[in-house]
């Protein structure tokens, strides 16, 4: 479903080009969950951002289902994120001015893929029933991340991308959040690519891929 071939990316820093990705090859199958690990600065987040269309690669190719992400323009990449992808970040990045209920339905509604039954199931399984009228600032970190996962999965994306989703959570909460994410991913049948530092959490996914010095080790 996701195929990344020969991906390269460098940044200009202090007048010099710093190569972050030096030809990454990666594939994630439908329904497969993959943990992307690696030391700090290895390029994990950059790879995730390129797959999400948040940034453009210097070279190589990214193909998601029948779409060649590398050839999309800005509007096309926005459409890809809206309709095909779900994104979860370490900082939760909920919309502070919207209530939990409005945050949850936001992406599915703008993608035109709102499914009331699936929405109710998400609320139930994520344990958000009593939190719907609250605002992000009134939630704990674990609760906020559950809302973020719900928002990302509400439009039933092809691929869920998560960048250190448990980085701001304690161990128990992290386990709980990841368990919920895995269950829901399995329920939708989408692919799941998660960047993590934690070998323990990485081990709970189907496959681990290690990124080292810009290439898959």
């Amino acid at each position, binding site marked *: 479903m996701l195929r990344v071939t020969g991906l390269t990316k460098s*940044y200009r820093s202090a007048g010099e080009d710093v190569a*972050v990705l030096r030809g990454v090859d990666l594939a994630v199958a439908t329904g497969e969950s993959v943990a992307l690990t690696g030391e*700090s*600065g290895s*390029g*994990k*987040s*950059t790879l995730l*951002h390129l797959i*999400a269309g*948040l*940034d*453009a690669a210097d070279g190589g190719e990214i193909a998601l289902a029948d779409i060649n992400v590398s050839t999309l323009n*800005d*509007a096309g990449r*926005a*459409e*890809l*994120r*809206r*309709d095909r992808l779900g*994104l979860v*970040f*370490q*900082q939760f*990045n*909920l*919309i*502070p*001015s*919207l209530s939990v209920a*409005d945050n949850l*339905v*936001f*992406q599915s*509604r*703008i*993608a035109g893929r709102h499914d009331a039954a699936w929405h109710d199931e998400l609320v139930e399984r994520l344990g958000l029933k009593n939190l719907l009228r609250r*605002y*992000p*600032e*009134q939630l704990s970190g674990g609760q906020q991340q559950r809302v973020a996962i719900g*928002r990302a999965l509400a439009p039933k994306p092809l691929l869920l991308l998560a*960048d*250190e989703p448990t*980085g701001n959570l304690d161990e128990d909460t992290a386990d709980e959040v990841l368990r919920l994410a895995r269950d829901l991913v399995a329920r939708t049948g989408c692919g799941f690519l998660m960047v993590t530092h934690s070998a323990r959490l990485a081990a709970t996914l189907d496959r681990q891929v290690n990124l080292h010095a810009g290439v898959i080790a």
Partner: protein
Amino acid sequence: MRRPLWILAVLLSHWRRHPMQLATLLIGLISATALWSGVQALNQQARIAYDRAAATFGGSRTAMLVSKDSATFPQQLFVDLRRAGWPVSPMLEGRVQIDGRSFRLLGVEPVTLPSEVGNAPAVGRGSLQAFVTPPGEMLVAGETLRDLGLKEGERPQANGIGLPPLRMQAELAPGALVVDIGIAQDILKMPGQVSRLLVGKSKGKSETPHATLESVAGDKLRLVEPSAESDLERLTDSFHLNLTAFGLLSFFVGLFIVNSAIGLAFEQRLPMLRTLRACGVSARMLNTVLVIELVSLALVAGLIGLVCGYFIAAALLPDVAASLRGLYGAQIPGQLSLKPVWWFAGIAISILGALAAAATSLAKAIRMPVLATAQPQAWQQAQRRWLMFQSAAALAVFAVAAVLIQFGDSLIAGFAVLAALMLGAALILPMVLQIALAFGQRSARAPVGIWFWADSRQQLSGLSLALMALLLALAVNVGVGTMVESFSRTFLVWLDGRLAADVYISAASDAQAKQIKTWLRDRPDVEAILPGGRAETQLGGAPIEVLGLPDHATYRDNWPLLESTANAWVRLRPGDTCLVSEQLSRRMKLAIGDHIEVPAPGGNWPLGIAGIYADYGNPKGQIAVNFAALTRHFPQTPLTRLGLRVAPDKIAPLITALQATFGLDDRNVADQATMKQESRRVFNRTFSVTGALNAFTLGVAGIALLTSLLTLANSRLPQLAPLWAIGLTRRRLAALELLKTMAVALITALFALPLGLLVAWCLLAIVNVKAFGWRLPFHVFPLQLIELLAVAMAAALCAAALPVARLARMQPATLIRTFVNER
């Protein structure tokens, strides 16, 4: 010593990284200082001119003896008082016409002139001989010399009499002609008469009076104590209060900009401040350096602001001078001369303004803990609490305004009502916006729509100060615009009635006027000759004009009366009845049927009041009487003014013939259309300074909105980036941001319209009545309101354009940074 400098360098490094923020801060301080000091420069310039006028040979700054009825009195009283040891000096005052224009003639006696009288020195020493020996000298200010179009040494003519040669004396007030009292008595045909006696300070026992005033002069004279404030100062107080209010408003709007810039810089520098504290910088040292940094920036901005303020004042001075001349007859020189105190005050106001704008940020810095706790910003709760508090304060301020409207009865109370209304409206604005946006959110169905309204609500706390500035600027624009337009409409209708004659003549002398009248009587194209004249006297301690109107249908049919008895014009004929101007009737609380005693050279003239008329633009009170009665009671009245009724097609040939026959120029003879055009020009110029200040205030409000949006733009990235990540394009996000700014600006502008109309009502019904003595009808001008609404939206569009364009062009890498924990 090196440690504070090092800390200062660290703090300043923030501005190097954020030059736009620094520019915003400086722009705010410069605008605030420039507009405030510009207005102060104008006020100071005017006050210098009033001082010159007041000090002119015994204005209100000198104690004086005047007759009980303010008329002239025999010179013998001066001789008697001098013999009794009184340090008095005689003065005769009157008006002379030179080339059809009226000047104030002052006759002084230089030998006895008290040394403390402002302009005495140039007369009192070497040039004394030339001043008192025929033909004498006539002292004038440089401005008057220029007005006359004459050089020093030349001798102008007044009523056929050759006046003494002109000599310039810079300290004199413009418009005054000073001669020896003997010469003045000849020119004014008042031999042996004086208007007042200036009272000097006694120089020891030898000059102490050895008889009381009553024992020498009986009850003929009364002592008038010197006043710290001149008549002109009192009269123009409202104008300067108005200017100051504009300056203050612009100053506060400028401080809104400073507040938002400093607030943002502080938020962004919090980690830096914590690091400095963690590295061992004491709280006291850090706060001291923060204040030093702020004061240094305020100094730089203050100096630039002062230079800008000087140029603003220089640009506005001609209009301000025209306004003061048109409204109050005050003569202000056209060149700025500023005292050092103005420069120091400007710098001080810049520093104080910066400290006031930074007060909350500095207070936060003082209380800042070294270890920050990760507290999410509880905007919902905090905003609700703050909104409730602000709304309660607004209601309290509105209550104060209501009490002032009910019980206040002064100009200050009028301005206090205006201030309370504006402050209350500014305080309640966030609540109004909150309610409007919440309504929008409730009625939205689409998710982006819901976010649009919800995010606008969240942005309110950051934008509310700028929106308040926009509200105030718009309300002042609507209020002042409506007042000026109401005035303009009323003035033009009034002018049509007042300028009813077809041709106006101002002869050089009574003799020439007589020749012209004889010549006109033989012309078949002249339907009527309407002689006019005016005299000056005092009523209730203030100068008034007595206007003589001929008994003719032209006046009966056209002269606009606000209220009158039946047959008011017929009742004027015998000369025992008058009409009074609106401002005089308000000032002296005169009504139809009341009686007044007007001091005249032959004794008091008792007059009944038969009507009240509008007399816009005249600083003095005025009464209108029958022309023949005026010449009986004031025999010295110049008879140089004539109005003519002429068929429209005969006007131009008649004027040409008059000019050819009597050597009259355009200043001496004019048709009705030219007079109206000139009056309209003066009227428009009178309010052009208001227009300029309106535009400045709106401009500064626009900058305040721009800087708020720019400073908010950066802090809003965490809110916008997730939407972009979810799939909204940057272009769409930019469009939504623009729409949000326009929406809140529109709500603010719509709220400003009724507020502005309320301000206009206050100006027309309270401030104008107290300041000028006339009340104008209140009109609403929908087209003007629509125009201002468009201007407000254009200002909002301009302010939002830059941050929105930046967002639309923002590199993905910048947005990604919001999500990045590592690379």
